[in-house]
């Protein structure tokens, strides 16, 4: 018998966005049951790795106007300006809220919240907890969430599909890792807070769980994905592992140096130097390397991030994690030696299309955090806006989903109706996927081969520099990989903690998201923010100042256009 559960609000994901949404929904009304489903224990979510900080206007010298204009310019004028304005106004309350909940934010000598400089931000406005900001935010949120008896957790459960009926979300199918059993989880509202999709690429700062699951599930259920072509590269990751060295190291004064011992950014972002936006800096690094001014190492070419002049005391106080990571994973002590770095895939600007309340066009379906695209990040996110975004729109989605669920609650119990159809149908499809894998005997393709093939296609063809033929080639190979996945075989036939079954689902999600990225990139014949086309190297506002919405169809994404909301800031040339 299939297990069946029902909750008023279900949140998929226990990162910053998911937990913030859960707390908002649970505190909205204690009559609501709020479930948080996560494929890893919530405190293992990728948010835990965030280092540098979270942006908000808290100081007298700063203003909403300034934070908004920095964000809009940083996003190369693709962000929705009304959404950005709403975001910057809400962000300070959220930072204070976390402070009240116990987040150990770093402080000024007088006890007020400290702020640091970050790329593309014209004043210091990034609040931080040393260089473990995400870690502290996540643990604070998780610990605080334990106060709410109406938050129920399904830890180490994997969601495989959304269940739809008459264009509305009715719940989802989820698999308990302990038993491999699929369950039907009925819900009045579902919030996707499943994070980004960086693991579609090989060289990435992202944790292994970032496979775009929620994006793919929402997409398949009929919600469009927005602006998928915009993938952020972070300029400073460790060669080999891709482990991030935070932008805060430049915010605190670090230099980027090429083989000629030159602070080469003077040729790219002369005013901002190391604090230019990530899209421009990442291209600058690769250009230096291509023109022979990089160093060569066992894991490819790189440049150097020099922190030595900051001194041991500052590094230990403000960047202790950078020192720990560089020592452990590069064998280098940044107090005495510069750190080798190169750009790596870092963040998905695109995601599930939502409004400022977290609503998708599908009734009852919400999204927030990196899985969503509101859009405040436009074509290039500014560092430290993402954690604030998780809080602001996590809360908004939680409140709105709770209100929606309450209004439905008046209309009776979560219906049992139609349990066989379409619920039975959805369960059957996922069950067949699992049994297909289990019964296929050896000789099939290995999941790990398929996955690394996808990752290398994406690195090669959908990276920092793109062109039409590369993008078409990527799409062709993604199609082949789909056939490959249908033939894949796994070693593990067991029921308990079968992680290969999970990986197979994840690879399916990754392929859908990868294709939406490649296709959106192919038809955006201009260069904007993080999307750079060598065959169309200029921004083209006349023909491309719009969002691209990808709708799912079995043959591949169908693209529709959505205009960008422009309130006060007319598109202008970006100079830093």
């Amino acid at each position, binding site marked *: 018998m299939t297990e069946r559960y029902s909750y008023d609000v279900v949140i998929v994901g226990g990162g910053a966005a998911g937990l913030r949404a859960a707390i908002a929904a649970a505190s909205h009304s204690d009559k609501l049951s709020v479930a948080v489903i996560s494929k890893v224990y919530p405190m293992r979510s990728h948010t835990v790795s965030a280092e540098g900080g979270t942006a908000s206007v808290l100081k007298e010298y700063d203003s909403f106007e300034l934070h908004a204009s920095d964000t809009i310019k940083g996003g190369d004028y693709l962000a929705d300006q009304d959404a950005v304005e709403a975001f910057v106004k809400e962000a300070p309350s959220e930072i204070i809220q976390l402070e*009240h909940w116990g987040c150990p934010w770093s402080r000024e000598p007088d006890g007020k919240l400290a702020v640091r400089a970050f790329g593309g931000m014209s004043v210091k406005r990034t609040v931080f907890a040393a260089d473990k900001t995400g870690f502290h935010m996540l643990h604070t949120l998780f610990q605080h969430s334990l106060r709410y008896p109406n938050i129920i957790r399904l830890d180490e459960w994997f969601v495989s599909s959304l269940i739809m009926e008459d264009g509305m979300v009715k719940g989802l199918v989820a698999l308990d890792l302990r038993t491999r059993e699929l369950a039907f989880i009925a819900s009045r509202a579902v919030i996707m807070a499943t994070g980004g999709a960086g693991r579609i690429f090989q060289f990435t700062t992202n944790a292994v769980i970032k496979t775009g699951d929620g994006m793919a599930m929402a997409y398949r259920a009929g919600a469009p994905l927005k602006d998928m072509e915009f993938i952020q590269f972070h300029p400073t990751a460790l060669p080999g592992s891709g482990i991030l060295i935070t932008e805060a190291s430049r915010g605190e004064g670090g230099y980027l140096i090429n083989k000629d011992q030159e602070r080469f950014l003077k040729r790219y972002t002369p005013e901002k130097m190391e604090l230019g936006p990530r899209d421009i800096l990442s291209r600058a690094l690769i250009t230096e390397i291509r023109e022979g001014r990089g160093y060569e190492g066992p894991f490819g070419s790189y440049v150097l991030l020099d922190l030595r002049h900051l001194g041991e005391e500052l590094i230990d106080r403000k960047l202790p994690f950078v020192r720990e990571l560089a020592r452990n994973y590069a064998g280098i002590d940044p107090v005495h030696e510069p750190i080798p770095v190169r750009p790596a895939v870092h963040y998905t600007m695109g995601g599930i299309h939502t409004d400022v309340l977290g609503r998708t066009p599908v009734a009852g379906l919400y999204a927030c955090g990196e899985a969503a695209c509101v859009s405040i990040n436009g074509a290039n996110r500014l560092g430290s806006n993402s954690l604030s975004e998780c809080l602001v729109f996590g809360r908004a989605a939680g409140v709105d989903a709770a209100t929606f669920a309450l209004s439905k609650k008046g209309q009776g119990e979560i219906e049992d109706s139609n349990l066989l159809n379409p619920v039975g149908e959805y369960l059957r499809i996922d069950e067949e996927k699992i049994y297909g894998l289990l019964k296929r005997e050896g000789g099939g393709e290995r999941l790990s081969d398929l996955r690394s093939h996808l990752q290398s296609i994406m690195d090669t063809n959908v990276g920092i520099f793109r062109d039409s033929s590369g993008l078409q080639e990527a799409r062709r190979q993604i199609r082949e990989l789909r056939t490959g996945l249908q033939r894949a075989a796994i070693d593990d036939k067991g029921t308990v903690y079968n992680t290969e079954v999970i990986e197979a689902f994840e690879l399916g999600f990754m392929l859908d998201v990868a294709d939406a990225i490649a296709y959106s990139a192919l038809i955006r014949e201009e260069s904007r923010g993080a999307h750079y086309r060598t065959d169309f190297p200029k921004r083209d506002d006349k023909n491309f100042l719009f969002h691209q919405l990808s709708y799912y169809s079995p043959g591949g994404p169908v693209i529709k256009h959505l205009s960008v909301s422009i309130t006060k800031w007319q598109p202008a040339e970006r100079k830093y």
Partner: protein
Amino acid sequence: MQKATETINIRVKRYLPENEPRNFYQKYEVKYFPKMFVLDALNYVRDRLDGTLAYRWSCRMGVCGSCGALVNGIPRLTCATPLSALGKGVTIEPLHNFPIIKDLVVDLGDFMEKLGRIKPWIIRERDRVIEEGEYEQKPAELELYSQFSACINCMLCYAACPVYAGDVDFIGPAASALGYRYNLDSRDEGAEKRLEVLTEGAGIFDCTFVGECSVVCPKSVDPALAIQRLKIDSALTSLKSILKREKS
């Protein structure tokens, strides 16, 4: 990518609940590259040799707390343990003192319950509203609890703790350290409530101060110190309440 030049053998303790026998050691030959971590070796096995091997990992940068295991008998994060530090033989086993679900995956249910029990949140008579702004906290006040807030819940300390080995009801190192972290926070007023929880049943007084927890902790949390200080705080609190009673 670096070319693999040689191979090494690793030995993994397996536990397959649906197999006969359930428990056994398995050897794998893994391609070796310099700067390789124990986690890389496990990933090599899973990707190339044997997809049935189960273990947890996510961040691969020592911060998510997923990947704890015994490496040559010592509780460690597999993603932060370079193979070069290990000498010839490498044996990987699940963390001690937890029920095993499969292979290196252990059951954390007990800890998750204890975590909630110690009330790891700010407790106040009256909460501030947002409009009142932040609570001021001087850098020195932050410094006071900062080390105890660095716990990644990796469970290495529980695996090393002889008291927990003898009695799973023991509240244990990480939960105590977290309770202490909130007790030290200048914004918090819940210390007494937490001390009650931390001392009832198999609470902190069961700790015999072996200190193994602090030795294995990868984040220098020093849970042993937290427990010792909590014992003193608890003794002082009871002393105070006795004095109060005698006065009245």
